[in-house]
């Protein structure tokens, strides 16, 4: 199977039963993406496929053959943090850190959705083309990512600051 992962072409031989998550972690040794519930409930495994956030645990790797996958390793490194990673550190958007790679990938995908005008469950006027990224909008849009440490306030602050600075 051929993929583009974090900009690099990769060819892997693996069992058809391999999830995209296990392909990344066990075959490509990109252990930044985390396995939490392994059933689509926690969001720790969130990666970007063609720029869209997905749960890599619910995806068979073979379904994403030929696709471009971005993981946390493709966004920033320990010596060159992504601006959103830096904002998470500054705002205490993590405690144990296990959900953080998923939170960051999800937030990047979420902001792309927001910028192209995708409404959410809490959007009051569906036909509006632009919305404000309010506290409620942000929390609803990030509801697929759980944080057992409860660092939500810091996560919201970090994403809000990153979004404001990016604008």
């Amino acid at each position, binding site marked *: 199977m051929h993929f583009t992962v974090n900009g690099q072409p990769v060819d892997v031989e693996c069992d*058809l*039963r391999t*999830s995209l998550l296990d392909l990344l972690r066990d075959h490509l040794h990109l252990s930044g993406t985390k396995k939490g519930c*392994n*059933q*689509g409930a926690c*969001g720790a495994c*969130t990666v970007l496929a063609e720029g*869209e*956030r*997905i*749960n890599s645990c*619910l*995806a*068979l790797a*073979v*379904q994403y053959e030929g696709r471009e996958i971005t993981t946390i390793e493709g966004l920033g490194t320990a010596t060159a943090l992504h601006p959103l990673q830096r904002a998470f550190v500054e705002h205490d958007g993590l405690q144990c850190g296990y959900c953080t790679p998923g939170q960051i990938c*999800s937030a990047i*995908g*979420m902001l792309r*959705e927001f910028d*192209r*005008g*995708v*409404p*959410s*469950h809490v*959007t009051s006027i*569906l*036909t509006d083309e632009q919305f404000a990224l309010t506290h409620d909008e942000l*929390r*609803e*849009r990030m*509801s*697929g*990512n759980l944080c057992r440490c409860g660092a939500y306030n810091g996560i919201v602050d970090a994403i809000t600051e990153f979004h404001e600075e990016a604008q």
Partner: protein
Amino acid sequence: MTPFTYARAASVPDAVQRAGVTGVKYLGGGTNLVDLMRERVERPSALIDVSRLNAAIVERDDGSLMIDAATRNTAIAEHRAVRERYPVLSRAILAGASAQIRNMATLGGNLLQRTRCTYFFDDEGSRCNKRTPGQGCDAVGGFNRNHAILGASPSCVATHPSDMAVALAALDAVVHLNGAGGERTVSINDLHRLPGDRPDIETELAPGELITGVELPARQLYVRSTYRKVRDRSSYAFALVSVAAALEVQDGVVADVRIALGGVAHKPWRAWKAEQTLRGGPATEDAFRAAAQVELADARPLAHNAFKIELAMRTIVAVLNELNGDSA
């Protein structure tokens, strides 16, 4: 997971030609099927991946909308024509699952996700007629707070989990199919079955038949439509009760109405009786309440879910009041 073979369908005819054999399953976004395969509840011998087939939303000259089966849930919810003319559908999709799952899940796959409850997943610990026909149902006498109150049977009390399908039921959507017998269409309200004594058979699809798209009829009625979902937490949870509705009021009289319920039955529950009660009558809260009571008169609660009857009635009234207020 048990081993399987995999083929990516090049076209609808290619997919249909590969299917129709026992053990072969179509694969959409995989968000339900892959999960069930991992739990060994689903054990397909072959997967035909239809997730890369057409995914367009076409506005037709007659005002109807044709949505290809591989269209992702997010793409439907954000589509301009859906938001303007079928707001109930956008609202329902956005109330379902998480953004990650909505980015993966296809229209066809959402409709064909399994009607399920927690006992269905518990392969090693519980009896389930859906998993093993004739085995018995541990939900009927077990923890059944989330289970069905309408149309259930002693064999199965699970509910259909889709929010999107409840909106489609209210919108009289037409499901386009292709199979060994050729092309045909079926109303969304005839697609899913009630459990009866065969809860393992959930739809009227013939073996190997593929959903190729869903057609939304053009009706002014649908412009004033919405969806309300009641759940245990404010996001990312299945419905205890949900209501999709459209309402047209002229001079204080209900000219036309559509109501469908989620979280209460083995399939999206079209509230035909409530609609019939309302049509031509006054658009008042008392009338909404009376119509809801007519619909819920058939409800049969289990030990832990009797609250759903009153909850469904109140939610119907609240949604119709909201839509009625919009028309004032």
